[in-house]
Every structure is written in structure tokens, then in C-alpha cells.
């Protein structure tokens, strides 16, 4: 399948084909003695996705739904169990050596925690210099010029280069993380909860910077986050993930103003709105995300779905075009319009 491209004329920058990853749970001695079967966590289950050059794809879902694992798969930090990742039409799963490094350079990840993702014993200059020299981006005096240029790009104050991470605030550290990612002139940025750890007033600064840099440098961005308001603001398209599979994907505004999948509906309704008049007494979505050790048969959402029927318990719905996006629900048309 392919999802509705934003830039219809171009070919996708990144394509995921039936991408899956399973982690085997460690067996204890007593498990082995009791001959309990090996437990397998299915974190990502057959995701098909096309990401167009220059677009921002938002990825949302509850914790444990596999959105971070998906981000790490794309960044090459995990090896998929099955399926394929195509970058500019070429498979990158089995890459080794120089070609692996070339891919790693072009797809850069930015992490959630600005306090643990930077080496506390390296100055900002060392951190950036390491990235630049490892990938031989520039040499000699060029390196230092590039460092200054990068810090200027992310608007860190003069003299920041020779300070250590602890001397910066959380927002500034995330800027260092962005500078580090940009130092390799990547094509695609994977932002895993980039601003979640920051104060609200500082979040906006970092998000503004990200949007601006993206437009300036023509970057493709995968924006993984749980703050739905922010995702709506920055994304062109949004994918909603439930138990490692896409349940709905579509243009951001359409999806947020009229979600078609019952899970997307519940998730969006649960997000706190700023309208005290819109209070509910009952929770928007009952129950919790089931364990990825035992994904329910049929539609994985049927145990929490208020609309579930016998068919949902038996038959897994495929992701199919509904409205302006795609939805994996047998009854998307009737539920979506309700």
C-alpha cells in the first residue's frame, strides 16, 4: 500500500514495507524448567509507510505502542525481524561498512532526554567535532568554523562551544542535540519526543526552531510525540499507532478535525483541551493498552472499542482508504461520521 502523498509528483524518501520487529523476552531458569514457552514482544507489526521528501510525519500513540521502536528502527538502532526499509528506493536493512555509515549520516536521530543524551564530560565543541570528524564532514580549521556555524544556526549564545552540558538549560541542551544532528547535513531527522522534557514556555522555542530549520534546509522530519497539540501543529501528515500497527494515517488537519478510527477518536478526545466548557464526566477511552506479549486476535483495539462486533474479534481489519486518509477499521465509515 502507499498512503496519500503530500507531494504527489515525487518518489518517497523513505518507505517501510511490512516492517516488523519482535523482541524475545529473557527466560528465567524457572521458566525453562517449567517448559513455559518463549515469550515474544511484538513491538512493531507490519508497518507500511511512505515518507515524502520535505514532509513532517507525526507519529502518535500511547506509551508502549511501539512508536519509539519504530523511530529507532528507521534510525538503524534496531534491526527489523522482517520487512524492509527503503531509503531513496534502496534497501538499508542489510547495509554494512561505508554504505551503512552513509545512511547513518543521512538519517539522524534526536532524543527525548536532554540530560542523558549528551556526554557530560565533553564540551559542546568536542561533541560536535566528534560527529563531524567521524564522518569526515570537514577537516582542520574547517571543523571549528563549522561548529560555530552550527551553534549560530540553532541560536546558542556566543561562547557556548567551550561549555559543558550541565551549564545549559534543558531547552539549550535540546538545541545542542539538534546542532549535533545537523552537523552531518542529514536528509531526514527522527525526533523522538524532542520537547517532552521541556517546560511549556521553552517547548515553543524549540518547535519554532525545528520548523524553521526544516524549511530552510529542506529536511524530512519524523516527529514522534505524545503531545497531540504539538504534533498537529508541526506535522503535514500524522500516523496513529496502536500495538505496533498503524490504525489511521492521513493529512494532519483532516485527521485531527475528523478522526475516523475509534482509537484515534478516543485518543484525541482524551487530550486535555483548553476549553473548560468542554468537560466530560466519563473518560474518553476506558481500559489500557494490552500487553504487546499477547496482542488480541482480530482487530487489536476490539477489547477497548465501544463499537466492537463479532467480526472485529475474528477478522483483522486492513488499512484502507477512508476519507482523505487511510484507516484500519471495518466500520470506519459509520463510526467516523457518528
Amino acid at each position: 500500500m502507499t498512503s496519500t502523498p503530500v507531494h504527489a509528483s515525487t518518489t518517497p524518501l523513505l518507505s517501510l514495507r511490512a516492517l516488523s520487529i519482535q523482541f524475545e523476552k529473557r527466560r528465567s531458569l524457572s521458566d525453562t524448567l517449567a517448559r513455559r514457552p518463549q515469550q515474544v514482544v511484538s513491538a512493531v507489526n507490519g508497518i507500511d509507510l511512505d515518507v515524502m521528501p520535505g514532509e513532517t510525519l507525526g507519529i502518535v500513540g500511547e506509551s508502549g505502542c511501539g512508536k519509539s521502536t519504530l523511530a529507532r528502527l528507521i534510525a538503524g538502532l534496531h534491526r527489523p525481524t522482517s520487512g524492509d526499509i527503503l531509503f531513496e528506493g534502496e534497501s538499508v536493512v542489510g547495509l554494512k561498512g561505508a554504505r551503512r555509515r552513509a545512511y547513518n549520516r543521512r538519517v539522524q536521530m534526536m532524543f527525548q532526554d536532554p540530560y542523558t543524551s549528551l556526554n557530560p564530560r565533553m564540551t559542546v565543541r568536542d561533541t560536535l567535532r566528534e560527529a563531524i570528524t567521524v564522518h569526515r564532514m570537514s577537516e582542520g580549521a574547517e571543523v571549528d568554523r563549522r561548529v560555530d556555524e552550527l551553534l549560530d544556526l540553532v541560536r546558542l549564545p556566543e561562547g557556548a562551544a567551550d561549555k559543558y552540558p550541565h551549564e545549559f538549560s534543558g531547552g539549550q541542551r535540546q538545541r545542542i542535540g539538534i546542532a549535533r544532528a545537523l552537523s552531518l547535513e542529514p536528509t531526514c531527522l527522527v525526533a523522538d519526543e524532542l520537547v517532552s522534557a521541556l517546560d511549556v514556555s521553552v517547548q515553543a522555542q524549540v518547535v519554532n526552531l525545528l520548523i524553521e530549520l526544516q524549511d530552510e534546509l529542506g529536511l524530512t522530519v519524523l516527529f514522534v510525540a505524545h503531545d497531540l497539540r504539538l504534533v498537529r501543529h508541526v506535522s503535514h501528515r500524522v500516523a496513529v499507532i496502536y500495538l505496533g500497527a498503524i490504525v489511521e494515517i492521513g493529512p494532519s488537519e483532516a485527521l485531527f478535525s475528523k478522526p475516523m478510527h475509534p482509537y484515534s477518536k478516543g485518543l484525541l478526545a482524551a487530550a486535555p483541551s483548553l476549553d473548560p466548557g468542554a468537560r466530560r464526566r466519563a473518560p474518553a477511552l476506558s481500559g489500557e493498552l494490552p500487553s504487546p506479549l499477547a496482542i488480541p486476535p482480530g482487530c487489536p483495539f476490539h477489547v477497548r472499542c465501544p463499537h466492537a462486533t463479532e467480526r472485529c474479534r475474528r477478522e483483522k481489519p486492513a488499512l484502507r482508504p477512508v476519507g482523505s486518509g487511510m484507516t484500519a477499521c471495518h466500520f470506519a465509515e459509520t463510526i467516523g461520521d457518528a
Partner: protein
Amino acid sequence: MESTEKAVVLDVRHLRTEFGPRERPLVAVDDVSFQVGQGEILGLVGESGSGKSITLRSILGIIRPRGHVAGEILWNGQDLVLLDEARLRRIRGREIAMIFQEPMSSLNPLLTVGLQIQENLVAHTDLDAKARKARAIELLDLVGIPGARNRLDDFPHEFSGGMRQRVMIAIALASNPKLLLADEPTTALDVTIQDQILRLIQALSRDLGMAVILVTHDMGVVAETCDRVAVMYGGRLCEVGTTTDVIADARHPYSLGLLRSIPRDVAPRTPLYSIPGAPPALNALPPGCAFSARCPVAGRECPDVRPALEAIGSSRLVGCHHLEDALAHFGPREAAQ
């Protein structure tokens, strides 16, 4: 701030909490006064380091490392600041209960949840063992834990994050508290679970007539849950009012900026309003308005002269020298929305 319709249960007056040496103290909470009415949910909102959690902990006298609390905290006519540890302990956990942000680290991992609830029942009620067990089941049921009877013997790690927070609430409710202090109870949870916990707190407050102080950094949580809201910045209150008023018509430049930086009704991918700079360090607060360094409408006197909280209308307090400038600065966009 008067809450006219409800009897006041907690009256905090000029609370000041400081740490470190007395001659050069770090003032975490500075001259904070507010009241909470019976059955009312008051939101205390602010960024990290704004003093909202310290305010909450000051009420129960659980400031660690030991800080110095001054001012008055009037609870049923008693000033909690003056009580000794033994007398405070009779109120703490019994009349005033508290729940925390991380249910995993506030529950004892080595004890079953049944035992942890019953521990509280032993401390604060006269129930016998059999009645305590029945009450523990009743409490788990009340907070919406499915199959409560069978979960008494489970350990905290056998519960999910949301369920653990429910267990925390059940423990807090064991003594029928009149006031629940909730310190970011949903920050570690998903929006769907956050929503469930907030609805639960709301229902309990309504059904049991329990007052709640909910500390949060999320204006959305306030909008969905609280009756009134107090906005804190740099250890001081900058605006207090009903949730509806503050969210629809904030007056303090900080509340205005905070609300404006949340994307709503703005075109996608356009620059969001952002408050310049970062929250101040406690040792670098100006003698005047704490927000002056980041304020778009600050005047020359702002860093030196502390603005007093002044009443606007019947139910609002705002501390700012430049209220009109603030409205003019943030006004045009507000009108466009």
C-alpha cells in the same frame, strides 16, 4: 481570594519557604496566599522550579532537605506551621492526604497493595482486621481497579502505571481526607490514562466533598479539571482566578504568554508564541517582579518593585504593574481567535 459559595477549609497566608543558610537563603516560595473551599479543586500551575510542589509540601511539613517555613497555614482554625511533628502527624495522611507524581517510587515494592492500604487504615481508623480488609477492597473498587478482591495480594510491580496511581489514590482515601494534595499525579501517564485519573479525582471530589489542590504544569489539565487556578512563577503567585476566567481572559503577561505558547487556533507550522529566555534560578530572582526578565511589557521599575496581587473584578487577583500594556501586547491575536 475569597471563594464565596464554599466554606474555606484551607487558608494559606503569606507562606514563605526557604532553604539553605539563614543569612543567604534560597527562597522557593515567597509570600504565597490562597484559600481552598470545601469540595473545590484548585489548580496550582507553573513551570519546573516555580515553587508549586514546594508549596504543596510546605502545607504538610514534608520539606526535604529541611527547609524553613514561615507564614500561616490555617487548617480548621489551627496553624499547621506552629504544630510540632507529633500533632502534625495526626493531620498528615488523615485529614490531609497526598499523592505523588511517580506511583512506582512512592509505593513500597516489597509489600502487597492490600497491606499498604491496610497500613494506613491501622494508622488512622479504629477498624479491626476483618473490617480493614473489607474496606481495602471497597477502596480499590472505588478507584476503579477491576477485580479488586483478587488484587489485594498483588505487588506494585504487577500493576500498570495508571493502576498504581489508582492504588496511591486508594491509600490516600483510606482515612477519608478532607483535602487531597495531588503533586503532578498524571505527568508520568499517557493522555488516555491521565484522562481516566483526572475524571476519577473529579468524581471523588464531587462525591466525597473532598477539596483538592492539583499541582500541574499543563494548562489543559487545569482547564479540564479545576474550579479555580493559581498561576505561579519564580515562587510567587502571579494570577489567581476561576479556571474559566483565567483561560478565556488571562491578565498577567506570564499567564498570557503561557497560554499563547500552546498551539490552538493557529495556522499549522507557523511560529508559535514563545516566552523568551528560560525560567530563573532561585538564586537569581530580582527583588521586584520575578517575571520581569522575560516579560515583553516590563517597565523600568519592574525588576525592583514587587507588584502586589490586586483584585480585578470579584474573583480575580493579578500581580502586575502593567496590566493594560499586557492586554495591548497580547490583545490583537486574542481578538483574532
